[in-house]
């Protein structure tokens, strides 16, 4: 653990409380679904009860007649493009020719009262001819499968290869071939999708809804309404949990459309069940792996066929597929590989971003494979990994030069001390220990990213910092405030965060891919440098000297024995009519070109993690209780150890849910079966194991004060480590998550 005493920094490496925590414990933080606008209409969504079908007609006349109804909208009412989607805009805002999943929106209703809106919803009738339903990857791949889209059921297919796998395999000592499967996981954030919208005096459509990427939301709304982005404002904060599930559009376009059409304030919040039916989920995966090693345990080849279930449309599917490609080789030196990656359409809702973004899926496969190979080789699983991990300076599997992999080696060595089977504490108990290693890129890899952030020195004595990334619980507000405090050497209490609102913050991108500290942090530091440079000249003018004779410390510029504060200088700038707001854009360090067949592979900066999971298995019931989890992370320099550890712990607990109990299921007609907390059970506090988080001392020069990222790393290796621990306990290996009792006994 990084201790605060050894730190040379004043404001980072410090576990200060979240700057928004007083409002959170006092209950005074107003989430966007808490907002009550005067004169607001109640809005609801009419959804398909058929998972796959041809739309013949939608009848809204009876609904429109209900007293108090102000709008009943269908696809015919969409002013411009009827489509959205973070990567490919193919998801209909309102379905028009076909429905492709149960719960797909067909119409929107807005009315003066809740009763009128619900009555109108009841009166909408649809004529849909049902089509056969595709419920799984296997069904989608069947040559006789009904086509969900005209082009068929493969949304994306790509092959990435290196070396000669046939040759490598033929000389191998051991070749293992296995199929791994992981389930659809629901985000189950506590605050369902929702928000409000209104048109202000200037004619700007304001959309205030929980989300992750305000500027992309704004562009997506703009395309549908056919109005310029400047006429739209999107605010995404505060948000009651997101985890990727609010990264693409949920209610934002529907809200904007209703406010635009009715010219009235509108509130639209999904019920828990609607969130369960129509909200996003994690891609299910089926991964065939054939991996070979030599007699000494060095990996020779890896052949992967990856199938990810995108559901009815592609949201982030193509880039999720990329991350699954990038992580299927783990952090290992594998000279020969073929990765055949497929994104598949089914009628299972819509899969989208979920913490880890394709990495947990691939990690379960490759790390389970590594554990089984260690068994076959009769090698310690940590030694097997130590032999095969890529070292700093080596060329990685995607021709990327590996930066700073020392942390992974150190983490594995530390893991040796923690890797032991615990003793049973009761009858009919078997215990086991398991391990897995995780690697995940920070940010969007080779995709161009130019995040802009700003700071404003306010003469009244505070510094506003502005970025568009959303703090939905990760703590980036606090972390970024600490970074700016460190740079300007001023207390965090003088910093005021204005974020996640296109009205105040420049486009720094959104919160995803563990990128917010790296991108917003770096851009903010650049903005600080601009501010300091400008203020230094103003200080020189104040002191009647030259700027190179002026020094800076703790919020003051000095010349000889005289000092002047940044706020005093800001006041002077303001009097001169100059701006005290400083904006800067970062060119995110990246490789110039993506590996052929991918959009964003490889990344330049990787986070690493090693997890050790200790479980107790009830011999009679097959129930698995995770008892202790150790996580050793290399996330670069740690800005706020308590918040970072909280991210690691939270990811582990979500990962344990994914590994042990969580699985979204659909019935034979494509209707989702578990759509609320009663039927889709998530971990509660008594399910939480003892968690020990340790940080490797590490510094990534490309990051802000050496930081990388943290949000996703811990969820990634949980599945493989739990499966390995269960194998250790009961002697039987599992290849499918979640590890439900009837699957393991």
């Amino acid at each position, binding site marked *: 653990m990084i201790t605060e005493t050894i730190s040379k920094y004043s404001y980072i490496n410090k576990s200060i409380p979240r700057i928004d925590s007083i409002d959170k414990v006092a209950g005074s933080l107003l989430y966007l679904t808490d907002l009550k606008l005067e004169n607001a209409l109640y809005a609801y969504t009419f959804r398909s009860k058929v998972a796959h079908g041809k739309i013949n007609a939608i009848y809204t006349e009876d609904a429109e007649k209900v007293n108090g109804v102000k709008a009943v909208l269908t696809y015919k009412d969409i002013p411009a493009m009827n489509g959205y989607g973070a990567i490919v805009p193919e998801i209909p805002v309102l379905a028009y020719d076909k429905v492709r999943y149960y719960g797909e929106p067909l119409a929107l209703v807005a009315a003066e009262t809740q009763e009128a809106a619900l009555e109108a919803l009841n009166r909408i009738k649809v004529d849909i001819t049902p089509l056969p339903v595709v419920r799984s990857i296997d069904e989608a791949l069947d040559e006789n499968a009904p086509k969900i889209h005209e082009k068929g059921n493969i949304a994306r297919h790509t092959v990435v290869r290196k070396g000669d796998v046939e040759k490598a395999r033929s000389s191998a000592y051991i070749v293992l071939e296995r199929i791994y499967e992981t389930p659809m996981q629901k985000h189950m954030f*506590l*605050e*369902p999708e929702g928000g409000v919208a209104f048109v202000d005096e200037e004619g700007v459509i304001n959309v205030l809804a929980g989300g992750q990427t305000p500027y992309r939301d704004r562009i997506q709304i703009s395309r549908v309404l056919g109005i310029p982005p400047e006429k739209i404002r999107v605010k995404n904060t505060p948000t009651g949990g997101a985890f990727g599930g609010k990264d693409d559009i949920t209610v934002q376009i529907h809200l904007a459309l209703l406010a635009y059409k009715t010219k009235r304030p509108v509130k639209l919040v999904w019920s828990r069940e609607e969130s369960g039916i129509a909200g996003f989920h994690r891609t299910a995966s089926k991964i065939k792996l054939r991996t070979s090693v030599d007699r000494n345990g060095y990996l020779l080849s890896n052949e992967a066929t990856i199938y990810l279930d995108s559901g009815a449309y592609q949201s982030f599917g193509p880039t999720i597929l990329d991350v699954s490609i990038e992580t299927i080789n783990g952090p290992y030196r594998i000279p020969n590989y073929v990765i055949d990656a497929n994104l598949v359409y089914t009628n299972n809702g819509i899969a989208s971003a979920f913490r880890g973004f394709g990495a947990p899926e691939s990690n379960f496969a490759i790390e389970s494979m590594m554990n089984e190979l260690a068994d076959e080789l009769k090698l310690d699983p940590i030694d097997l990994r130590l032999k095969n991990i890529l070292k700093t300076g080596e060329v990685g599997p995607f021709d990327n030069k590996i930066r700073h992999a020392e942390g992974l080696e150190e983490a594995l060595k530390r893991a040796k001390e923690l890797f032991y089977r615990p003793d049973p504490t009761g009858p009919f108990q078997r215990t086991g220990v398991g391990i897995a290693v995780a690697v995940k890129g920070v940010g969007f890899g080779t995709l161009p990213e130019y995040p802009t952030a700003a700071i404003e020195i306010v003469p009244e004595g505070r510094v506003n910092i502005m970025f568009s990334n959303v703090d939905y619980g990760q703590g980036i507000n606090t972390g970024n405030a600490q970074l700016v405090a460190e740079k300007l050497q001023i207390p965090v209490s003088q910093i005021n965060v204005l974020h996640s609102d296109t009205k105040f913050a420049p486009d720094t991108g959104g919160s995803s891919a563990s990128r917010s500290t790296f991108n917003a942090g770096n851009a903010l530091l650049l903005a600080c440098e601009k501010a300091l440079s400008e203020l230094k000249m103003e200080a020189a003018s104040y002191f009647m000297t030259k700027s190179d004779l002026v020094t800076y410390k703790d919020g003051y510029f000095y010349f000889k024995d005289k000092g002047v504060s940044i706020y005093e200088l800001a006041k002077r700038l303001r009097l001169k009519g100059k701006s005290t707001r400083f904006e800067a854009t970062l060119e995110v360090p990246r490789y110039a070109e993506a590996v052929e067949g991918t959009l964003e592979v490889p990344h330049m900066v990787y986070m690493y993690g090693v997890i050790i999971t200790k479980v107790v298995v009830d011999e009679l019931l097959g129930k698995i209780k995770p008892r202790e989890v150790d996580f050793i992370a290399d996330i670069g320099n740690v800005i706020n150890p308590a918040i970072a550890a909280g991210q690691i712990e939270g990811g582990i*607990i979500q990962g344990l849910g994914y590994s042990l109990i969580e699985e979204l299921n659909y019935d034979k007609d494509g209707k989702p079966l578990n759509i*609320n907390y009663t039927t889709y059970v998530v971990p509660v*506090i008594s399910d*939480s194991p003892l968690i020990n988080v340790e940080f490797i001392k590490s510094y990534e020069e490309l990051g802000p004060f050496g930081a990388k990222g943290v949000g996703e790393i811990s969820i990634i290796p949980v599945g493989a480590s739990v499966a390995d621990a269960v194998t250790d306990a009961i002697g039987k290996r599992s290849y499918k998550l979640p590890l439900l009792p009837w699957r393991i006994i």
Partner: protein
Amino acid sequence: MEVTVSFNLNGKKVSVTAPPAKSLLRVLREDLGITSVKPGCEAGECGACSVLLDGQVVTSCLVMISQVEGKNVLTVEGLQKDGELDPLQKAFIEEGATQCGYCTPGFIIAAKGLLNENPNPTDEEILEGVSGNICRCGAYPRIFNAIKKVVKKNGV
């Protein structure tokens, strides 16, 4: 049909007129401006709308307003005394027990109810006491530490 119900909300007498089956959660949010109670599921499963009803922890989504006549309702808005945060609120801040914060008021109320009944719960009793509340961010280890911190202070 509507009924008029009077009760004590955070120590102050309030009176509302609403349909008798309207949930306490909806009345608090829509009629009385109390937004710390969150509609996470409206089925009594997530605990985000927890309040103390005559000192007992209940999920306010499952309580009908007509059942509240003459009772005392406490939400986190009523925990501060003379502007000073409750020890549980302070402990949640110090231990980093909030992430997105949406579940936080419900957890604090559930912990308050637990400690009212049992000021010195064992670790198991703490876990059981707040197992009706969900934190999807997974702040559980820190929520436990926060409650434990207050228990330790009580014990001294």
